[in-house]
């Protein structure tokens, strides 16, 4: 394989990986606050793209505003989902809550189908124009946008966690919910904010990728598997590890393409199973000795 082809695969891997990273962050943030795997995470991605298309094509809102509107609306949907479907059952077994999120994802998908139909819907690129060529490999402008969005998200989350009162409250809940509650932290509110934030990140990913792939009511479940695999790869702990998990999964997928393009979609599941069997704490987490 030539160097430029290899580079092209790496670019594609980092592009897809960035999207997986945003979804993995969503899984990780909700898990940290609740110990629940939110399988509706993929639907936030779908809704982000859908609402952006609807605002742009249906309401003729400028693209920038349509994107912002979609992300904010989906964040609201995430908060509402937590309030209406999760909080009333918050003392239930995590498994029951996980089933609720699976149910939620089915509801979101069928509502989207009724509202927006079952066709694939397109969105223009944020900044249309020819691809950049770098060392013989092409980089679409939208790919650059995706990288910018992921980078900005990582910086934003790092600042949130380390520099703000809310971020500290979220970390405190992550480490020990009971102790956090005793510090006067309203943990119910932290959970709701976590869902809103995860939904916003999912929507951001969906909006960023729709110009390249278009969107459809039924794409949520497929991307949720990828994001979940990336989150597991990262260990469902630190946000940075989730991002690393996403990028790594994107690259692994591209690595199998030269051998068989059919296998690409199996990779996420294979990685998921392998990690769960061999290293359930994820690649980047030190196993900590529990104190007695």
């Amino acid at each position: 394989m030539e160097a430029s082809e290899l580079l092209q695969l790496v670019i594609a891997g980092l592009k897809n990986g960035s999207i997986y990273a945003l979804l993995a962050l969503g899984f990780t943030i909700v898990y940290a606050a609740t110990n629940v795997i939110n399988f509706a995470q993929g639907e936030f991605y779908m809704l982000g793209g859908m609402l952006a298309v609807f605002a742009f094509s249906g309401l003729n809102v400028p693209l920038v505003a349509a994107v912002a509107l979609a992300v904010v609306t989906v964040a609201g949907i995430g908060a509402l989902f937590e309030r209406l479907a999760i909080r009333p059952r918050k003392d239930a077994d995590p498994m029951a809550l996980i089933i609720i999120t699976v149910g939620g994802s089915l509801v979101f998908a069928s509502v989207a189908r009724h509202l927006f139909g079952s066709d694939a819907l397109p969105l223009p690129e944020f900044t249309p124009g020819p691809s950049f060529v770098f060392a013989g490999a092409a980089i679409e402008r939208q790919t650059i946008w995706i990288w910018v969005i992921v980078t900005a998200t990582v910086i934003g989350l790092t600042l949130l966690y380390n520099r703000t009162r809310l971020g500290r409250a979220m970390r405190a809940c992550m480490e020990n919910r009971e102790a956090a509650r005793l510090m006067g932290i309203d943990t119910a509110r932290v959970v709701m904010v976590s869902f809103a934030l995860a939904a916003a990140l999912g929507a951001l990913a969906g909006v960023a990728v729709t110009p390249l792939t278009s969107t459809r009511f039924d794409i949520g479940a497929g991307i949720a598997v990828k994001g979940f695999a990336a989150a597991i790869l990262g260990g469902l702990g630190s946000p940075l590890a989730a991002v690393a998990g996403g990028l790594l999964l994107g690259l692994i997928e591209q690595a199998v393409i030269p051998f068989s393009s059919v296998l690409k979609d199996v990779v996420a599941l294979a990685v998921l199973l392998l990690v769960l069997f061999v290293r359930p704490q994820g690649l980047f987490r030190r196993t900590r000795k529990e104190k007695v």
Partner: protein
Amino acid sequence: MGMLSVQGITKRFGGLTAVDAVSFEVHEGTIHAIIGPNGAGKSTAFNLLTGFEKPDAGTVSFEGATITGMRPHRIVRLGLVRTFQNTVLFDDMTVLENVLVGMHVRTRAGFIGSALALPRVRTEERLAAEEAHRLLRLVDLGEVADARAGDLPHGRRRLLEIARALGSRPRLMLLDEPAAGLNNAETAQLAETLRRVRDSGVTIVVVEHDMGLVMDVSDEIVVLNEGRKIAEGPPLLIQKDPAVIEAYLGEEAVDA
């Protein structure tokens, strides 16, 4: 009436009455100890005082407000904070960050404000950090502010927990066996710290097994035995009280 008013609290577990119609008042600006031999009902009493368990009878009120059954974060907001027998810190955070989390109820910045890094929010963060440093100096942890909390030795973890509890600017702090697992030097430092905290205007209730600490720092002592209050008064009187001596001698006789 005292700052914390305990009226006839009773708690039964099956056939056992762990706490039996206990009443006492904690006055502002004092260190009040609750002692008793093993199984006297100290831990249950502590959980009742902090609103963690609901008494079968009786009430606990803090400055006139009944705290029984109130949600923990509301109790903290009233100005009543507790520590644990097994120190529970946020190990992955720094010492300073632990205190900042303790200050959570007193700061206000919400999500939007933080996201926009409003000047008001930045000022609040700076002031909060300054106060957290001040609290760390109060408990002699000023120089390890940036260490990871999980890396502190046992005695210092206990002091950090106190600093973190002070972060909520409580009017009353309840400590559950603060001397447990500490050596003599650490216990002496703890006593010194508790006095300093009291003198800074925080009333303290301590449930404790360590007699040395209790006699050293307490202004007022309540002695429980088999769930009942058998004596109450300043340390010098308690040391001479025949009922107390008998309860403790009984324990030693059993231990021996």
